[in-house]
């Protein structure tokens, strides 16, 4: 039995319901019981009441692209620690990528993930299954069985689907099971295990470059296949200007495409890897300012539908090595809100737009529900203090790994209260 909770005087931002105003929110038995003008609801006798004046009250945030590492790489992250990091970042739901060990390409792995999430999770976990068996890029995985077990989409994320016929068949067959196909767009014969963005900096550092066309060629191929098969496609972690443009044009033609980018792609350039900083090494790599600008524009004009963190925990063993050998990826769950708030303060996004990109949009893309503060809906609610200043230090990280290029950054704004089905999963309140 969950105790009722009355959230008073907050700025309720609920883009799914077209609401942005000061409201009271009453949560009873894990559901949203009322959304009213201030003072119009009292709740049951003795209800715990929080005065949220100056805070944002938004739908529980949804990160549609995280790596929880369990099973197989529990030294980097577990479902328990990863969902704790999610809650601390304001997320009530995450979609976890299938590149675990073993790969999530069957119902047994899916069931294991869901069982662990149910037992020890601090957020909803939506498993994403593999496109191909073992993510080897050869044969289709068993989508029907995985769907029954609970996967919400399929991808070979971490690896591109090199074989175009396999990608076509995946799009076609995923339709039978109403599964979304998510594309990790990378042409590997061009990226060639490169270590960073191709260009002058890569030349100066003596690192093999990944040209931006390696992404764009695959984005184009997958858009073409989506158009040809008439099936929806979702493009993961968009990092280049031309990718944004390709997606924009495909949308204009009516192709069923959605796309996400990550906070690092609208915040950092390749300059972050200078001095061989492996904490800024990722795939796709950080690009240039023109790409950053285009991604911001894509978020602003709706070309990009979602902000997802690509939360990719790695231990020191994977990162404190020669740059070429260092693992790709950074953690992101606990920095997504402050980094995205920067776009709001810069006037690139409105508050409602930011919240849509982090909640209702990914919910709709994945078809998982949530992302709205409707009366009667499950009470997944996040409270953001847009003014709270803090330094992001390693001691504050809830994730099991601390591989972030943002360590030491001074931020303004963070999630201060995360509520999952009426229960508080994270509180830094009043703080």
């Amino acid at each position, binding site marked *: 039995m969950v105790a009722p909770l009355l959230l008073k005087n907050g700025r309720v931002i609920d883009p799914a319901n077209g609401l942005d105003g000061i409201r009271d929110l009453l949560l009873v038995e894990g559901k949203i019981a009322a959304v009213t003008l201030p003072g119009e609801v009292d709740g049951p006798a003795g209800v715990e009441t929080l005065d949220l004046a100056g805070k944002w009250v938004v739908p529980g945030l949804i990160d549609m692209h995280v790596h929880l590492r369990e099973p197989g790489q529990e030294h980097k992250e577990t479902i328990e620690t990863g969902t704790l990091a999610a809650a601390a970042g304001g997320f009530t739901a995450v979609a976890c990528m299938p590149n675990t060990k073993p790969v999530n390409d069957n119902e047994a792995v899916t069931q294991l993930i869901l069982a662990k999430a149910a037992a020890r999770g601090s957020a909803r976990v939506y498993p994403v299954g593999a496109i191909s068996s073992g993510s080897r890029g050869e044969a289709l995985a068993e989508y029907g069985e995985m769907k029954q077990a609970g996967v919400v989409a399929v991808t070979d994320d971490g690896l591109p689907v090199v074989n175009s016929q396999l990608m076509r068949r995946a799009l076609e067959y995923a339709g039978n099971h109403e599964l979304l196909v998510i594309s990790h767009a990378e042409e590997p014969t061009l990226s060639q295990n490169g270590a960073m963005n191709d260009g002058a900096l890569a030349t100066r550092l003596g690192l093999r470059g990944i040209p931006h066309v390696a992404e764009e060629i695959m984005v184009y191929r997958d858009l073409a296949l989506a158009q040809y098969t008439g099936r929806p496609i979702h493009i993961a972690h968009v990092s280049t200007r031309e990718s944004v443009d390709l997606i924009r044009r495909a949308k204009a033609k009516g192709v069923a495409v959605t796309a996400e980018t990550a906070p690092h792609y609208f915040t950092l350039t390749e300059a972050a890897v200078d001095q*061989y900083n492996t904490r800024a090494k990722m795939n796709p790599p950080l690009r240039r300012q023109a790409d950053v600008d285009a991604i911001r524009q894509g978020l602003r004009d709706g070309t990009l539908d979602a902000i997802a963190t690509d939360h990719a925990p790695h231990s020191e063993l994977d990162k404190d090595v*020669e740059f070429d050998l260092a693992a790709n990826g950074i953690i992101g769950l606990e920095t997504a809100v402050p980094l995205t708030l920067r776009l709001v303060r810069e006037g690139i996004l409105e508050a409602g737009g930011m919240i849509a990109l982090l909640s209702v949009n990914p919910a709709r893309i994945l078809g998982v529900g949530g992302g709205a503060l409707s009366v009667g809906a499950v009470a997944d609610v996040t409270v953001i203090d847009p003014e709270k200043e803090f330094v992001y230090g390693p001691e504050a990280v809830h994730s099991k790994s601390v591989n972030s290029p943002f360590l030491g950054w001074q931020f303004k704004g963070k999630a201060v209260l995360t509520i999952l089905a009426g229960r508080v999963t994270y509180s830094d309140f009043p703080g």
Partner: protein
Amino acid sequence: MYSTHRFSHKHILGLADLSVEDMGLILQTAESFKEISTRAIKKVPTLRGKTIVNLFFEPSTRTRLSFEVAAKRMSADTFNISGSGSSTVKGETLIDTARNLDAMNPDCIILRHSRSGSPRLLADHIDASVINAGDGTHEHPSQGLLDLMTVKEAKGTISGLKIAIIGDIAHSRVAHSNIIGFSKMGATVAVAGPATLIPPGVEEMGATVCGSVAKAVEDADVIMALRIQKERQHDPLLPSLREYANFFGVSQKLVGAAKPDAIIMHPGPINRGVELDPKIADGSRSVILDQVTNGVAVRMALIYLIMGGD
């Protein structure tokens, strides 16, 4: 003219980190040390009691020997560790290997490694000084300095010269250090080669990219041919070495377009008949063996300066 400059670097990781004054002081010091190698007793006691480790993870004859000779002529104790004999084959990380070496209190570790940036990684984790003896496709600063010394010796100056570097600019750490070093010292650096071997943005390091080898060599004071590595099979960079030799090799005809007193350089080892016509390699304009001689002097100077000598 540089005698008042104090050398303040603990590590030598690349010429990108060194100022014109630093490089001037290194060259000046190397010039004064060169004479030691011509004595009957080729040894001075300057670095007696100092310990220098040659940590070489890539095969190297010339550079490793040159550093070892340099250290021994300064009376330092030297130890050689090669990739196959090291614990990395047992799965130890570079940082662990370095920390273990560091625990034995060496004064300087000289590192050759196939991965760009590994000397920086080492320097960040140990107390000893680190000299980069070539890292991946990043830099080879001692080679760049010995090339500067050789040109200065032959031409009397570096500023105002035209240096043509021909060949695999993309994968050559020697080219990178030379482009940075020569352009910082006031020379013009023209590079040319197959477009597949010209890296993006090399202009930002200080090079001018020429569309043809002939254009790069035109009126040059120095022609440097780079080794073409036959072992790069993963990337279709060249149709054949035969075609490379015909269109990009430094030939006698090509040398005719340079200044009459132009010198020929090569960092070695040479693929004779591929990037360089053997007659030119052995001809009167070649300073290739002077490069090797100067390599010892430059490395003596580097070791001396980072150990606080002045």
